[in-house]
């Protein structure tokens, strides 16, 4: 399956050079955790993963065509 991935802020550096919006090919039964591992993204309490706009954990199954957004929560105001 192929998912669309968008990386923001500090997680941009795990994207292919110069691109924040790209496609990743995964095994048919892949979950969020496999995508993160394949990309080499380290995760902690402040890493945010959204699948089709909804927050997702590592165990969330992915489907062909899903949009995965990755970023680190940041402060400000």
């Amino acid at each position: 399956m192929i998912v669309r991935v968008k990386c923001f802020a500090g997680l941009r550096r795990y994207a292919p050079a110069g691109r924040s919006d790209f496609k990743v090919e995964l095994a048919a039964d892949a979950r969020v955790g496999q995508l993160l591992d394949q990309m080499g993204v380290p995760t902690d309490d402040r890493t945010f993963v959204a699948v089709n706009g909804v927050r997702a954990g590592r165990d969330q199954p992915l489907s062909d065509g899903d949009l995965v957004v990755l970023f680190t929560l940041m402060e400000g105001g």
Partner: protein
Amino acid sequence: MNGWMGKILRVDLTRGEMREMPLDRDVAKDYIGGRGLGIYFLNRELDPDCEPLAPDNLLVMATGPLTGTGAPTGARYMIMTKSPLTGAITCSNAGGRFPTELKRAGFDGLIFAGQAKRPVYLWIDNGQAELRDAAHLWGRSTHSATDMLREETDPRARVACIGPAGERLVRFAAVMNDKDRAAGRSGVGAVMGSKNLKAVAVRGRGQISLANPERFKTFNQEILGRFKAANKKTPLGLTVNGTAGVVITTQHLGVLPTRNWQQGTFEGWEQIHGETLTAKYLVRNKACYACPIGCGRITRVEDDVFGGEGEGPEYETIYAMGANCMIDNLPAIIKANYICNELGLDTITMGATIACAMELVERGYLREDIVGRPLSWGDAAALVELTRQTGYREGFGDRLAEGSYRLAESCGHPELAMVSKKQEFPGYEPRGAQAMGLAYATSPIGGSHMRGDPAYFELFGIPERVDPLQWQGKARITKDFQDLSAIIDAAGLCIFFAVRNLAGKQLDVPPIGILEYLNAATGADYALEELIQAGERIITAERRFLTRAGFSRRDDTLPERLTTEPLPDGPAKGMVCHLEAMLDEYYREQNWSADGIPTAERLAQLGLAGEKDA
């Protein structure tokens, strides 16, 4: 004195007289400085029932003991007065270079009383103060007035001034310093305008002495070294995208207020996000004095309609003028921000008041012929034009200049104003961040995130993540964060550095790093408990002013929209804000009565029992 300069300048504008007053050492230690000194003077000298725009209101500008010392982000000052927007106090805070210059000129703070007969400005040249005629500056923009003042005083002078909005008593007029830094909230600029005080220009060549320079330097190197090492690994979001980078966080947590707080997510968020700002419009970062973060944005827009160059926008401006008005046109938001800077307007209240007007029009409570133009969601041209009109009180801008509460009330629907104590909220939806609702309702200045910002733990995960949808147990950590904010504000530091780098990593956020800086700078030998108690003293002293002005629990409110209408979208869908339950717990934590009045026991504990009653 060390850290503190030991002097306050009191300016009687009615008589045109000035007097230097020594800063009492015990008062300085008990109230720290900045926001603390401000409330100390207001409680002693100001009638809580005074009319905010009458001559008997006082306006205090106060720095902190770390302002200008070289402590990271020690650049800030506070403006405190009685607000024409809320009738409560203001504590409007800004950084830049002006506050440091004021200290180098020899003063911890300035107190303005009375009203000048004609426009004046205060010129302080290294300790020598003089009131000068400002007729030629009246009507000028903040940028133009600043340039003229530097030309006629000293090219290196630093200036805090009002623009046309403050002169016209717009209820949310800002005081701008260094052209684009804003003490934005609650109408401090209108109070300056009511006093016929156009500006304060300062040149200082003095030193700020430190009690223990070696200890200060060693600690400073350690803190800055740690900060730089951490950010070498991962650049700080605030440095890369400014506060505008928060859009992605609030959007994905469903707390980005949209359509005058009818939704928690905005479809056009990517167009107004900080990364778009950085990619398309950022010229360079701008840092306040001694700041290693540099969250300020110098921007340029090349556009036939909305083109220009200036500073901003911040996240709050983007929420208020963007998502809240359903405007995804970033150049228009930037243009409206520039206008606010030049005319001296608060961008949050400006955007939120226009959003409120859009809803009033949509629901048929306000006619477009009264507005003088079509006004619907997403109208970028209306945002820019109405902002300009407001700064000059032209046309419908005269109504907008009263803020959203008075506008909505005059249309018969005050419930559509998204305010606490008549002040508009910053951009975090309490239905999806429960403690934010408690912080808004109990903030002494009304809707604000800067007098205690639980978004840190609910949304940003600092110092640790707490479920934003839970309301049980939020009172204690909100109070602790409010106390920390009071200490940061009073010391002259910026929350963006201090919370992460100068407080403990527990939810009660002990101010351990601030303690070390304060002791090295002032020699006041604070114990940690004393410093925490100073924060509590400031919060309760502010509450005391409010209760004497007639405020109580019935004013610690949120609009019904937030407490009774379930949020229709996003991760917090179906939620309301459980304010009343959190309030009961909060007053107990404060040792205030169930009606929100500080108890005699609490006042005695904090050394406030002897303060005079009006």
